């Protein structure tokens, strides 16, 4: 099955192009993005230095100077685009099964969940109902971005989808689990941030010295499970 999904290619400055398959949070479209990402990882385009998969697009960063060293017939941009178009013509719509399921413990205790009450009251729910809805669903890792190892997970139940805070916090602790619209995510590192914080995981999501510095990959599945403050402290220790 060849690619039937429409796509658009546009320049991102003079040294990157983006292939956009849409502008929405959709598992099928994200599957295409990750298919294409996997293909370009397995069979790299020469002179490409980085690949940035996002919700519905893949950005391809290339080194203009290296391309000139390979060929001078065409501009670097035209040369890359020709290769990308060729790869796209071999891409298929084939459904890509989601990656491995990772279960991540989250403590929803008030001391670690400063916005849980707000999210609950906004939707006329109890905090327990919010926790039940947040943990019931298996989320997809659509992309990583914003911070090293920060996973964008979607989609949360509409009953708990909540816009970002109007005024971002100056410092969000590492491990904080937040909601922004229909997305949920984990602050892998301490950072300023505007997501509604409903819990915290004791799991270190980003380990710079580890063999795999980032715990999750695009396409993985994640399910949260609720733990007590005691278990949180035990796991954190």
């Amino acid at each position: 099955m060849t690619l039937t999904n429409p796509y658009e290619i546009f320049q991102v400055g003079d040294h990157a192009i983006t292939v956009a398959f849409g502008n929405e949070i959709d598992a099928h479209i994200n599957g295409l993005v990750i298919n294409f990402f996997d293909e370009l990882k397995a069979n790299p385009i020469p002179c490409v230095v980085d690949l940035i998969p996002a919700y519905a697009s893949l950005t391809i960063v290339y080194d203009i100077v290296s391309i000139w060293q390979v060929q001078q017939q065409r501009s670097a941009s035209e040369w890359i685009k020709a290769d990308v178009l060729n790869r796209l013509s071999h891409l298929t719509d084939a459904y890509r099964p989601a990656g491995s399921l990772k279960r991540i413990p989250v403590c929803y205790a008030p001391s670690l969940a400063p916005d849980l009450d707000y999210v609950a009251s906004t939707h006329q729910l109890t905090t327990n109902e919010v926790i039940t809805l947040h943990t019931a669903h298996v989320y997809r890792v659509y992309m990583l971005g914003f911070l090293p190892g920060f996973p964008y997970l979607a989609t949360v139940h509409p009953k708990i989808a909540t816009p970002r805070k109007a005024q971002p916090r100056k410092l969000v602790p590492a491990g904080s689990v937040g909601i922004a619209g229909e997305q949920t995510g984990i602050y892998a590192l301490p950072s300023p941030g505007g997501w509604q914080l409903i819990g915290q995981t004791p799991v270190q999501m980003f380990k710079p010295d580890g063999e795999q510095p980032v715990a999750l990959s695009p396409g993985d599945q994640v399910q949260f499970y609720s733990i007590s403050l005691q278990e949180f402290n035990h796991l954190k220790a």
Partner: protein
Amino acid sequence: MSLRIIRKGLLDTIQDGGRFGFQHLGINPGGVSDPVAHYVANALVGNVAGEPVLEMHYPAPQIQFLTDCMIAISGANFTPLLNDTDVENDCTILIKAGSILRFAGQVWGVCACLAVRGGFAVKPWLASKSTNLKAGAGGFAGRALLTGDVLPFANSLPNHLGGKSGAGSWRANVSALYNRGNIRCVAGAEYDLLTPAARQNLDRGSFAITGRSDRMGYQLEGPPLSVQVDTSLISTGVTGGTIQLLPNGRLIVLMADHQTTGGYPRIAHVIRADLPSLAQKRAGEAVQFEFVDIATAEQALLIQHRHLLQLKNACNFRLAAAFGN
């Protein structure tokens, strides 16, 4: 073989050409803010391109060299003084053990690169020696240098200095490597969303770099800009030089420590060849943009690249003539 930070500067970090290949994990490339200064500083001491350098901001650090060595400083001019005697940027400088380098004033620019012949001995993290401050990894202990830190040299090149000290009698001419005119950019994916008035303001208006500018991004203040339709975008990949329109109508240009993805309209992108020139503009300085096409942008980088290669050849020739290595 090392140097010691006697008094730390505002932000002194080890940087190289950047950490590529990990943006899919949210790990941004980082690297030097001014790749031209990085290249020139390394060329002046005979290093291979890409060796890590000490990137300094103003106030800059006070440094004591614990061994004889050869250094060069390029980029911002912070009025370097070696043992209280003027030395210049863009020169090869021979240093006697015990000498003290300090900086007396910010004359031009924002960031200066200090290269030492043979490079700095820091461990690579994910294939790069750049400091990623957010991740607390790479460079020197994953952080900015502090007073008392001793930064070891790698000594990857021979150093036959013959007990000489002071600056070389020649100076690299870098003036043509920086663009003192309009900062050139190419249109971004959301350029067409701008109102006609906003397009005119972007093309002809003058923008000032605000104090809220750092290695992550430079915020600009200028004539009002707005989009015709309030489209909400989902996050996509961004890159160094991307100009995003913030909800408050201000522009932010993404610099070396930029995030990997963003969700604000990408109205334009500064071309690679002009990013060093923009990086060296201080808060309060004016920026005017000029739109060019991709072919012009690539050509500008090619010219800059050839110029740098020539400069490196000239440096190698001078170094060989002066020191026989």
